[in-house]
């Protein structure tokens, strides 16, 4: 399984930088997205993760940090956590 690690600050600039890596990491198997370091996350990264999760193999969020969980919950995107890790 491919793995990608999210940085502490997942703002739009970080999203731009990671976008290609995420696209390339997607495949028939879920992409492992490690969110343990995330301290802040913005809309740009969230929508990339949603799109990635909708791809064939989808993604699995692993070790989500409290800040990540908090932002995901705030944005009403808990399914991203539950579904992706399922």
């Amino acid at each position, binding site marked *: 399984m491919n793995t990608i690690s999210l940085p502490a600050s997942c703002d739009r600039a970080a999203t731009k930088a990671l976008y290609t890596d995420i696209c390339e990491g997607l495949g028939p198997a879920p992409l492992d997205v490690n969110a343990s370091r995330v*301290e802040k996350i*913005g809309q740009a990264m969230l929508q990339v993760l949603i799109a990635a999760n909708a791809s064939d193999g989808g993604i699995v969020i692993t070790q989500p940090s409290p800040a990540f969980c908090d932002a995901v919950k705030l944005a009403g995107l808990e399914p991203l956590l539950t579904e992706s890790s399922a």
Partner: protein
Amino acid sequence: MMNDDDIQQIFFVECDEALEATEAGLDACKAGTHDDETINAIFRGVHSIKGGAGAFGYEALQAYTHCFENLLGDVREGKVPIETALVDLLLLANDLLRNHVEAARTGGEAPDDAELMTRLEGARPGAQSPAASPPATPSPSESAAQADEFEGMDDLDALLDELTEPEPATQPDKASWFVHIRPRAGGMANGSEPILWLRDIAALGGECVHCETSGIPPIDQLDVEQSYLGWTFRLPGTVDRGEVEEIFDFVGDDCALAFGDDPMPPLDLLTDEPSATDPEPNPSSEAEDKTDDAGGPHSAPTPIPSSSKPAAAKPAATSSQAAQTSQSVRIDLKKLDKLIDGVGELVIAQAMLTQRIENEGFAHIEELGMLDTLVRDIQEHAMAFRAQPISSVFGRVPRLLRELAGNTGKHVKLEVSGETTELDKTVIERLSEPMTHLIRNAVDHGIETPAERAEAGKNAEGTLTLAAEQKAGRIVIQISDDGRGINREKVLAKAIKNGLIAEDADLSDDEVNQLVFAPGFSTAAQVSNISGRGVGMDVVKQNVKELGGRITIVSTPGEGTTFTLALPLTLAISDGMIVQVGDQSLVIPLAHVIESLRPARDAIKGLGTARQMLNVRGAFVPIVSLGAMTGAQGMVDEAYEGVLVLVETESFGRAALLVDAITDQRQFVIKSLDAHYRSVESVAGATILGNGKVALIVDVDYLVQSASGAKGSVPVLPSHLENAAA
């Protein structure tokens, strides 16, 4: 395009507006005239400052407003009763908030707020009942540390709210309502971040019930710069729509909002790429998707009225969106001034055109009248843009009185009338300083100490009255106190001592009063730290004069003093009567003119050797020859040969100005003589006539006032002597 500085400027303007609203609300609380909306307005004011402070990184301000807001929240929810002690505390808090804002604006050091924050926190019900409240607000330093996250994204506001919040989300709230949020691409640019807005909404007790994800294209077609998401939040009934809208005050077009039954605003992508937008644009199908997408915990039924489901959307997204558009526009003052200047030039050009056409013998063509009406309409509308209620000046007085009470021990009751009177923004801005000084002076020198007042049989609490009204085309502002009045003997002695007048000078009461405006009358020995802050009464008079105004005093020993400021409504364009006086064209501001007449020979009576009075329907008014006053050559010799323009003055009653002829009556653009030449007494300014010539605008009050001392003219009788003369 606006930069950060521009946006910050707007923030500070809005801070001022919010502070005025909170101050007015707290004053209403103090007076016992408040209602629920008053409390809501105070809360909103503080809350909006907090929001902006967070966005711009003013951490101390944000921490303080958070603490302030907590207590206001308790007041709003009825947990803390509105009592005098509480209102006094809130007023103090508001004063400190003003200092905080000023510090943020000027980049100065934030005021010491520790003690007041403790008092604010102590006034909350949680202070007595530990069970009622979670841990107290973090200190500013803690808050600042917490706020130091990327570009304010996880802003302090949200963090603080999370610490103190959590509202019981499960509590069945019969009046829950929805807001739909659709950020646009700009919402993710320039350091803004939609997730922050969501945090602010959550801080109000909002809960996300749906995230609209159907607009997200496949990952390989996704543009990171675009905004594809939308959210629906449920808010408790205790939150009003204005509070949510305030969160988006600084967002502008970067986010579309919809409320209640309205559908989620449609996806609005930056480019027209159809591939990225293909899931659009049927709002109803989109809304139906929502319930499926939401899935899991969000799809669970809630006690929300079914009518509020987004699925009930009608295809009226654009109109509902338009309905959310603000009804006001904020305009840079410089742009407004350019418009006013342009209108001024238009008025001049119209006058020239009219003159030219009249010279060609087409004076009465219909189009000229239409043009005149249109230009007048444009001018009036343009001037209305700059008109502001004087309440923005009056509104600062309660704080001033509180400060003065703290310093002098004199508690002064404020009575205000006519605060909705409007006048030009420039006048308002420049009025603040002289008014502040007059009020300081009234409290410091006019109003007696409580002991002295008791001895004089007066109420221990002094009264300061501020009144404004529009009168004869001018704004008349009165500042009255019920103090001891001007001690004329003392003033006279001081003036003699300072060499302002001769020892044997014989001055009337009014002339003695006027001495307080003399330069050099105020000295360091005389002024206290209250009224002597570098602005003497002479500067007050100068300030008022520069505004084209006049200041007069009426003072009764033992009863009090009234300062009356008569100011022009506007500094730009006015109506005037153009008169011919010998070889000169002059403009008499129409605001002074009562009527004009060609007198019969027997209506003019001599008074003494060189004085003439006009009999106007039984009342005698003095005749003032404009030619003699202005030095014009070749004017009529006898009053009955010319035209008399009956004018009303502020302080000297009526007078009849003698002119050769009235040539026109029209709008004129006031050009400052100070700016283009130098200040000339008896001249209020200059204007350009239709024939391109410059005409002086007569300072009617000054002319009539000084007529008594002018050679070849008639002394002017005060109005109360007119009937006696008759």
